[in-house]
C-alpha cells in the first residue's frame, strides 16, 4: 500500500508545477495591472468552456502530442531532441510538395503518400543530428537547434520561389505560401463548422502504438536500456550509437508527421510560421506527461488549451499572450527542478531496504 502511495505521489509531483507557475503568473498579472482571476477565467472559459474553444484546444493539442511522442522516444533513448520546430517545417513542406505535385492521383493513394513524405522528411531532419551523434559524438541539442534554423531558411526559399502559389504571382501579392492542397488529401472534419480533424485520432492511436513499441518490443526495450544506463547497455551488447541515432530519427519522424497533418488537416497549404512554436511546446507537453506516451495525451490537451486560452486572455484583459510562453518556461524549470525530490525519496527507500 505504501509503495502504491509513494508511486502516486511521485507521478503527481510534476502536476504541482502548473499551480506554482500560475501563482507566479498571477503575481505578474497583478504587476501588469490585470485581475488574475479575470485573466485566468477568460483563459479557461476560452479554451474549455464551449464547443468552439474545446475543438480549437484539440486542434492545437494534435501537433503537440505528435511532437511530444517523438520527444518521449528520444528522451527514453537518452538523447534530447530540440529539433521539433525544423522537423515540423520540412515534414509540412514535403507533404505539400507531394500533394501539389501529384494532385490528380486518387486520394486513397495520395493521402497516405503525403503523410509518408512528411514522416520521411522529418526522419531525415532528425537523422542528420542522429548520425552525427552516433558517428562523431556531436552534441544533438546543438545540432538540432541549427537544423531548425536551416529548415526555416529552406522554407523561406521554397515558399518565395519554387513552391509559391502561382496565384500569388498572378495577383502580384507574392505572399509566401504554397498552392492550396487538392481536396483529396484534406483530413476529414470531425465536428462540422470547426477545424477539428481526423489527425487528432491518428495522434491518439499513435500514442498507444508508441507505448506498445517502447514497452513491449525488443527495439523499444533496447532504446530504453540505452537511455537508462548507457554503459550497462553497452556491456549487454546493445549497439548504443545505433539506438541513439534511431531515437533521434524516430523523434524526427513524429514531428515531420505533425507538420504533414497540420498542413493536411488545418491550413490546407504550407505557409510561413506553420510550426509556430509547437516544436518547443511539444517538449513541455512531453515532459509534463512524465515522458510517457500515454501521459502525453492529457498533457497535450492541457497545453493546447493554454495556447488557445492565451489568445482569449489577450483579448479579454489586454495582457500579451507572451505571458503564457513565460509560464511554459517556468513549468519546465519547476518540473525538472522537482524531479530530484522523487529521486531522493526512491534513493532513501532503497537504502532503508
Amino acid at each position, binding site marked *: 500500500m505504501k509503495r502504491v502511495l509513494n508511486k502516486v505521489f511521485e507521478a503527481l509531483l510534476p502536476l504541482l508545477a502548473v499551480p506554482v507557475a500560475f501563482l507566479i503568473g498571477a503575481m505578474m498579472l497583478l504587476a501588469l495591472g490585470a485581475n488574475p482571476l479575470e485573466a485566468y477565467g477568460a483563459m479557461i472559459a476560452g479554451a474549455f468552456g464551449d464547443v468552439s474553444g474545446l475543438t480549437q484546444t484539440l486542434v492545437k493539442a494534435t501537433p503537440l502530442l505528435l511532437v511530444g511522442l517523438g520527444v518521449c522516444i528520444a528522451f527514453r533513448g537518452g538523447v534530447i531532441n530540440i529539433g521539433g520546430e525544423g522537423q515540423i517545417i520540412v515534414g509540412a513542406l514535403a507533404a505539400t510538395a507531394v500533394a501539389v505535385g501529384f494532385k490528380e492521383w486518387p486520394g486513397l493513394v495520395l493521402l497516405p503518400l503525403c503523410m509518408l513524405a512528411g514522416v520521411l522528411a522529418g526522419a531525415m531532419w532528425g537523422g542528420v543530428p542522429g548520425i552525427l551523434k552516433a558517428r562523431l559524438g556531436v*552534441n544533438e541539442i546543438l545540432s538540432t537547434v541549427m537544423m531548425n534554423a536551416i529548415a526555416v531558411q529552406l522554407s523561406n526559399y521554397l515558399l518565395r520561389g519554387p513552391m509559391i502559389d502561382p496565384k500569388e504571382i498572378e495577383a502580384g501579392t507574392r505572399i509566401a505560401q504554397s498552392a492550396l492542397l487538392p481536396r483529396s488529401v484534406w483530413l476529414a472534419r470531425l465536428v462540422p463548422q470547426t477545424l477539428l480533424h481526423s489527425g487528432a485520432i491518428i495522434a491518439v492511436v499513435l500514442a498507444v502504438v508508441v507505448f506498445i513499441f517502447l514497452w513491449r518490443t525488443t527495439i523499444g526495450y533496447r532504446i530504453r536500456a540505452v537511455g537508462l544506463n548507457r554503459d550497462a547497455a553497452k556491456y549487454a551488447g546493445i549497439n548504443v550509437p545505433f539506438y541513439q541515432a534511431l531515437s533521434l530519427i524516430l523523434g524526427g519522424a513524429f514531428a515531420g508527421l505533425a507538420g504533414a497533418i497540420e498542413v493536411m488537416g488545418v491550413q490546407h497549404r504550407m505557409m510561413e510560421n506553420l510550426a509556430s512554436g509547437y516544436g518547443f511546446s511539444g517538449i513541455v507537453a512531453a515532459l509534463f506527461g512524465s515522458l510517457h506516451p500515454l501521459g502525453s495525451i492529457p498533457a497535450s490537451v492541457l497545453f493546447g488549451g493554454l495556447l488557445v486560452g492565451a489568445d482569449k486572455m489577450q483579448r479579454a484583459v489586454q495582457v500579451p499572450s507572451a505571458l503564457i510562453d513565460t509560464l511554459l518556461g517556468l513549468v519546465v524549470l519547476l518540473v525538472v527542478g522537482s524531479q530530484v525530490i522523487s529521486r531522493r525519496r526512491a534513493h532513501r527507500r532503497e537504502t532503508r531496504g
Partner: protein
Amino acid sequence: MAELFTLPVLVGILYSGIRLATPYLFAAIGETFAQRSGVLNLGVEGIMLMGAFSGFYVGMKTGSPWLGLLAAAVVGILMGLLMSFISITMQAEQGISGIGLHLFGLGLSSLLFKTTMGGVESIEGFKAVRIPLLADIPYVGESLFNHNLLVYAAFLLVPLSTWVLNKTTLGLKIRAVGQNPQAADTLGVNVTRVRYFCVCLGGMLAGIAGASLSIALINLFQENMTNGMGFIAVALVYFGGWRPLGVMGGALLFSFVNAFQLWIQVKGINIPSDFAIMMPYVLTILALAFATKRAQGPAALSKPYERGEN
C-alpha cells in the same frame, strides 16, 4: 563573385566581422566558465534576450547606455542564479532546464517589451571610440580600431579569461570542480559555490552580450532579436575546445562568414539570400562535427554533484 574581392569590400567584411563577433564572444566566454565548472547552461539565448531588453529599456529611460549595461549585467546575474538554483541545488537535468530558462527569457522579454514599449524604437547607444594612431594604419586601422567600447571589451575578455582560468587559484578551483568534483570537494573546494559563481558570471556575460546588440551594435530591441545566437554561442564553446582563445577563433570564423554573407546580399550576387543566411548554421554543424572528436570537454560536464554519492 569577383566583385566581393575588392579592397573596400574586404575592409568592410573585416570591420563587420569584428563587430559581429562581439555578442558571440561575451556569451561564449561566459558559457566557457559555466562549462569548465561542469554546468551546461543552454539557456544563454533566453538570458541574452533579457539582457537585450533590460539594457535597452534602462538605456532609453535614463538616456545612459552605461546604466543600461549595468541593468543587463544585473538581470543576467539574476537569470544565472535561477539557472544555478534549478541545475545545481535541485540537480535538474541540465539540457532541459536550459531549454526552460530559454523559453522563460524569450516569453518574459516579449511580455515586457509589449507592455512597456509596444513598438520598435531606437536609441543612441554606445558610440564608436577611435583609437588614435592605431586607427590610422592604412586599410585595416579603421576596421580594427574604430569600434564602440563593448567591442574592445569583448576582445580584451579573451586574454583576461585565459589568465583567470589558467593562472589563478580561482581558475584552478573552477577546472577542478569541472573535472573531478569529488576530489575537489575532499580538498576543501566548495563545489556548489564555485559552480554558482561560474553560472552567474556566465549569466552576467550573456546579459551583456544581449545588451551589446541592443545598445551598441543595432541600437534597438525586437522580440526574439537574438535569433539563435545564444545557442550558437554554446556551440562555439565546444568548437573552441573549452579554451577562450579557441572560442575567439570560432567566434571570428563565424562572424566573418556572417559578414561575408551580408555582403553577398548587399552586392546582389545571384545566390538566394535564404541560402546565404543558412551558411553560418551549416558551418556551425560542420564545425561541431570536426571539433567534437578532437577536444575533450570537462569530465563532469552536465553531471550534477551530490556529496557522498560514490
